[in-house]
């Protein structure tokens, strides 16, 4: 889910940046450092939308660097266990399929795919119902429920299921509109 939250960060700036554009340099350094990163607590920081407050700078002992506490508003994407999300299928194999919901990757194991869907290998591997009415393949849009999340150094990875009510394929790229 996307949230709009306020975060705080201590930014260190080299004295060569001091001057008229100090604030601009601070903001662009913040954007470069923070946008696109991921933490277990806040999720993916997608974009910074504004700077709320820049505190007084503190000169570090021994070096000329100055630390500024910066409060900023940003859009984050944080998946939660139990959340229902829409995702796009990126890869299908006999163990299950991978899907992406924004920056986060979700794996749905074949154990968590309805029993009436079978894996079909071939040029376009897919899961299909016995009557062929529903198909999950690359680029299909699916609604799934996140049942677990794991945080790496740089990204969050989720496990999902489509075995509950109202979950499964939303749209099939191969179907006629």
């Amino acid at each position, binding site marked *: 889910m*996307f949230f709009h939250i306020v975060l705080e960060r201590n930014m260190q700036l080299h004295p060569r940046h001091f001057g008229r554009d100090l604030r601009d340099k601070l903001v662009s350094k913040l954007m470069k450092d923070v946008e696109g990163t991921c933490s277990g607590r806040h999720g993916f920081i997608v974009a910074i939308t504004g700077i709320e407050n820049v505190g007084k700078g503190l000169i570090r002992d021994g070096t000329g660097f100055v630390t500024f506490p910066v409060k900023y508003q940003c859009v984050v994407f944080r998946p939660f266990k*139990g959340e229902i999300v829409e995702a796009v299928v990126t890869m299908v194999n006999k163990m299950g399929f991978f899907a992406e919901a924004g920056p986060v990757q979700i794996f749905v194991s074949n154990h968590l795919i309805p029993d009436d869907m079978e894996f079909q290998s071939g040029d376009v591997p897919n899961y299909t119902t016995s009557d062929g009415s529903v198909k999950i393949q690359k680029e299909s849009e699916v609604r799934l429920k996140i049942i677990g999340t794991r945080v790496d150094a740089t990204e969050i990875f989720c496990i999902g299921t489509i075995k509950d009510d109202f979950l499964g394929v939303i749209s099939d790229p191969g179907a006629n509109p």
Partner: protein
Amino acid sequence: MSGEEEENAAELKIPDEFLKAKCLMNCEVALILEHKYEQLQQMADDPMNQMSQVFEKSLQYVKRFSRYQNPDAVRQVREYPSVIYAPYDALRTWEPLSRNSGRSDSYGSIHQDQIIDVISAIVSFALQTRGRAHDDEAIEKMLNDLSLIKKFE
């Protein structure tokens, strides 16, 4: 990591800072990210270089799964809860009439018994609807209103 075992969005068991934060719809995020993308395009020659993969993937995702395309429709949907609850807010801030209050002059023509009847009718209506704010009929109405916004987007 140990705290994550307790998390469950289905039961709204999520960290406090997210419960209090503003949750964004995909269409709202699309508006924000598109605006940022345009800013980047104006500022730099090569916006693709400046965009992180997270930004790019998020932008593609929200554009694809936006329910409402029109910014006006997005605003209407965001403001919808305040429209629903406006009558309740009005009721809460309503000041009861009292015989000795300065306003009694303007209500001089209304009989006191009538005033009591009006007050009790309003209070019983409020009590009735307070607990049932989310009963089936109300939910049905909300769904219809939201689908109308989508229809006339």
